[in-house]
């Protein structure tokens, strides 16, 4: 699948922010030393880059969500994906879980 165009990314960003009640137009159009806030244009470019990666020779290279989305816990064999579902259950606090579950204490 092709990486979305900047126009498509802009639509996605504005729609997503609007759905959760965040208005990018609160940011200034020009630099604002008093608050240090980035301009709307700078914020949009930052978010495009976050989503789809920086441009190299005019082409975005893939962003952060994709890097997370294509990882699954390692599993091998004919039914690797089915096995991967069962591996590495999510842990918010792995060190605490280690203490709560470890044997021998």
């Amino acid at each position: 699948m092709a990486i979305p165009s900047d126009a498509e990314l802009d639509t996605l960003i504005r729609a997503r922010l609007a759905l959760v009640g965040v208005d990018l137009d609160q940011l200034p159009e020009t630099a604002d030393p008093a608050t240090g806030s980035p301009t709307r244009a700078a914020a949009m470019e930052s978010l495009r880059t976050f989503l789809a990666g920086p441009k190299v020779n005019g082409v975005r290279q893939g962003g952060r969500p994709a890097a997370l989305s294509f990882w699954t816990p390692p599993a091998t064999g004919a039914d690797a994906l089915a096995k991967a579902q069962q591996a590495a259950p999510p842990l918010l606090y792995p060190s605490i879980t280690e203490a709560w579950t470890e044997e021998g204490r």
Partner: protein
Amino acid sequence: MSREYSRRVFLAQTSAAAGAAALVASPAKAGGRPLAPSLPDVDVRKAALDDPTEATLAEAAALIRARKLKPTTLVEAHLARIDAFEPTYKAFNAVTRDAALAAAKAQDRRPTGVLAGIPLCVKDNYFTKGVATTANSFVFAGFVPDEDATAVSRLTSAGGIVLGKGQMGPLATTRATTPNGVVTTVNAWTPTNIATDPGGSSTGPATAVAGRLATSAIGTQTGGSIILPANQQNLTGLKPTMGRTSLYGIIPLSFTRDHSGPIARDALDAAIMLTVMSGPDEKDPRTQGLPDLPDLVRAATPVLRKGKPKMRRTTVVGVPADYLTGSAATLRKDFLAVLAGIEGIRLVDIAYPDDWALLTGTFNDARLAERTEPFRPYLQQDLKLFGVSVLSWLQGLLLSGDEWITAQRAKAHLIREVLDGPLDRCDVVLQTSVVPFDILGLPEIGFPIGFNASGVPVGAILGGQPYEEDRLLEVAAAYQAATDWHLRRPVDPPQAGAAARAFAAPLVLTAEEAAAQSA
């Protein structure tokens, strides 16, 4: 295999109980709350006798116990340095002079604990009752908590005296700046060069301790902000295992990665501070049901044989393959030579798992959704409240829930890789980045190992097994018994008062720089 960590602890405990050879003797346990460490009567150096702001926490406490130093004298000495040098350092967001003096006088009359009369700097993201807590952000302008954070309460209940709130990166992201990005706090070792990196967001507490404006301090770490300022300012920082200290009353950056801990002058001071701070807290379920705190003060008290340090327990130190690369390679090589010469330490080479860079680098971005979530009402109210830091909060809104859950699965995979991999071959492991053990909630200690060609301190980072902060302290204390880096203090700024801060131009972070440097 999946329970190798358990097997190691189990074997250590069993062998100690059976009176086996002391090679793997179990550390002493200090038990539950309230913890009141028994402080050793340390020899007080002449420099500390001559100037109480030079004293370590342990030295100052020894002098106060022996009635050779009054808390008011100690506090006043630090306030005098604040008067003289704070205009240059800008280590504090607020100085609570009157309250500190009143507390010191109360401690003169009736010392209340092991920290009786010890002047402390508290990072400005810890709630302090009746004192503004801003996290150095427009978001919390005017916020005055009606209670102390648990850690602050424990420190003051033990007699510690809060001199003020430490300057920090806005919402604990970058080095300390005003909310609009103007860099405030300098590295105490280069007070005339604002460009020198003073470390992470706990900059103010670190500069306060390094500049002798406070005896000790507490910071928070989500992406290195206890260890890195300690490394950059010749201090000893101890980021405990997740859950060892309560996070109640600390403005969050990431609920799964925030840690609180001491930034101190040496391993013993860090041990004392952490002992007082730690333990179960009914207001923070993450602190419940965890292993007892080992006797950290004992762990940080070096053992000497014929004047040379030796380890309490044989300790295997893992050295990663990339450790002797980069600008600090020579200092690190010298550091390893000293470690290798300490009786009871053995160095082993360790390798990273194949997917190390992905799971500790790319997956670091999962933290962004965690910082966004508790601040969503403010994002909806006015983006300008986030000042120079807003970009990473907006980025967090663009990660999906399934991607965040994937990152939590990656943590489960990663901790098994670490505990069954490198940490199966060693007791502690040297680090070249703080991020992996921040993601996993594993303990780390940072301590000084020398200075670079520009005179800026360089430190080592040592990571450990879950809830084995004692092992980290044993190594750091033995190293500090063999070296004197930790005893060196920066010279005072060349001029006192506001006139001293005469940089060629203010240093201002842009929003893009703030996002790139964000913890």
